[in-house]
């Protein structure tokens, strides 16, 4: 078995949730694997992160370089290619960073790439069997990935919950191996999201609307229902893409993280990026025409209905209470 490395995402001295999830994922590939955390970055935060990871991982490789102060995937890729042994298995979170880094890294490491892994079934010879999803989570697939010459495996965040398991090891400083880190893409700045007229992160009850609303003219019925319920209105990504609502109302990993008591998912299919923005275990009601929509797997109560007909009827019933 090749060596397994996990890329540790961190910002402002805090490790991302994926940092320890990747340790759990690595142990699913091989329970006796030696798993090394790779921490890249620059400055004072590095030692804190490395110490935290050394308490869990079998080993920690620290790569400290001013060029890595912000995790520009192009720079990180060079640092990893220059540092990691050939045939390594590299684990990344399948998020906006891992999607930026993983595919190109696999080419430069001349290894296999598997994206958005939601399950790991183990190895058979030189092949790793994993579970993925296609068509926005409507169907699952078993996929074999030839790992004999190494692999880059992007692991879906939140799937492999950290279970307090620990190996423990030492921190090795590999900064001297980072080599040439010059790239043709320069990080400039992060532009923070604009605040909207409603802060949905504070809402206790959300009526959230997705593609099932079909037309901009129909958006009004969602606001009417929310008003009857005393709720706020949020939405999924396609509504913002269509410019029918402000970005500040979007729930999901690329939008807001909400923690309501009750979440009404109206015509929302329930992609993992959307569900990633819902925390605090709310009571989820899903209304959708498509009974195969993934939202019905995670909702508490489901209703098979066309929201364009259902929402006005529900509003009327609530107003009649």
């Amino acid at each position: 078995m090749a060596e397994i490395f996990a890329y540790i995402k961190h910002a402002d001295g805090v490790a991302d949730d994926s940092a320890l999830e990747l340790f759990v994922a690595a142990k699913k590939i091989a329970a006796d694997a030696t798993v090394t955390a790779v921490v890249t970055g620059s400055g004072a935060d590095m030692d804190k992160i490395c110490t935290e990871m050394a308490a869990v991982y079998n080993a920690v490789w620290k790569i400290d370089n001013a060029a890595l102060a912000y995790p520009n995937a192009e720079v990180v890729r060079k640092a990893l290619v220059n540092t990691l042994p050939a045939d390594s298995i590299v684990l990344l979170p399948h998020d906006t960073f891992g999607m930026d880094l993983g595919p190109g890294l696999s080419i430069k490491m001349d290894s296999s790439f598997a994206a958005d892994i939601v399950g790991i079934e183990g190895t058979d010879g030189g092949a790793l069997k994993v579970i993925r999803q296609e068509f926005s989570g409507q169907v699952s697939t078993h996929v074999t990935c030839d790992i004999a010459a190494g692999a880059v495996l992007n692991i879906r965040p939140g799937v492999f919950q950290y279970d307090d398991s620990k190996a423990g090891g030492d921190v090795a400083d590999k900064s001297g191996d980072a080599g040439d880190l010059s790239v043709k893409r320069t990080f400039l700045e992060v532009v923070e999201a604009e605040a909207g007229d409603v802060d949905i992160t504070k809402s206790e009850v959300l009526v959230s609307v997705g593609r099932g609303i079909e037309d901009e003219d129909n958006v009004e019925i969602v606001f009417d229902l929310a008003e009857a319920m005393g709720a706020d209105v949020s939405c999924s990504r396609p509504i913002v893409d269509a410019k029918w609502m402000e970005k500040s109302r979007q729930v999901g990993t690329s939008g807001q993280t909400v923690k309501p008591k009750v979440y009404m998912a109206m015509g929302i299919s329930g992609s993992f990026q959307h569900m990633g923005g819902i925390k605090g275990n709310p009571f989820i009601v899903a209304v959708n025409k498509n009974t195969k929509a993934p939202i019905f797997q995670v909702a508490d109560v489901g209703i098979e209905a066309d929201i364009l007909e259902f929402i006005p009827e529900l509003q009327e019933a609530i107003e009649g209470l």
Partner: protein
Amino acid sequence: MEILVCVKRVPDTSENEIEINSDGNDIERDDLVYSVNEWDNYAVEEAIQIVDKVGGSVTVVTVGDDESEEVLRREMAMGANNGLLLTDDAFEGSDGKGIATILKGAVEKGNYDLIMTGAQADEGAAQVGGMLAAMMDYPYASLVNLIEAGDGKLKVGREIEGGNQEMNEIELPCVLSIQTGINEPRYVGIRGIRKVASVEIPELGAGDLGVDAAAIGEDAAKVKRVDYFMPDMGEGAEMLEGSTEEIIAKLIEYLKAKGGLK
């Protein structure tokens, strides 16, 4: 600016319920409605808008069969200048790396400043653009939701977590994967499709592209789908049944109990 946009013909998930066939080795493809991958459509719109501002041309390319030609024509009806169909029996069964290898052949036959893909397609892997960039030694940026063209370089915004945007400067030539919402893709009417119906779309195979047959197709694929199955539903939702009045009455009881009504 010479722009190449890589597009894919996919089952339209807003028009279809995806079902698995009886053998479990594919989805049920009879009667499926296909369309251009949604992300790719934003990429083509963006390319057209850039060329409208700074001049140049937009070429749309796909790896597929004769049926894939329809998505090329659709994007040409939007305003792409040229289409390119990469088709060969040897391409079948390629994994992401195989597809990127085929596209590299097309990139090397042209003289493109900018190559775009959609951020992801039906398989949700989001891999081909990044692989193609690394093969070409071009810089890459994924999930791009803003492009400002400059001299020999672009300023690009990437969508990152929390609704934030990561701004980068990237040298040309480069590869960008485009996120939905970057623009509002124009409507394509039947008249537009008719206008480009007789435009010739060149077809190129492995030999034309100079692609090594050993690097593509099923035999070269290191990542292979074994089967399809329905996701584990877990406990799943309690489905409310009955007449609409009954369903609403039950739902209101739940909402009252859970603090959903004020």
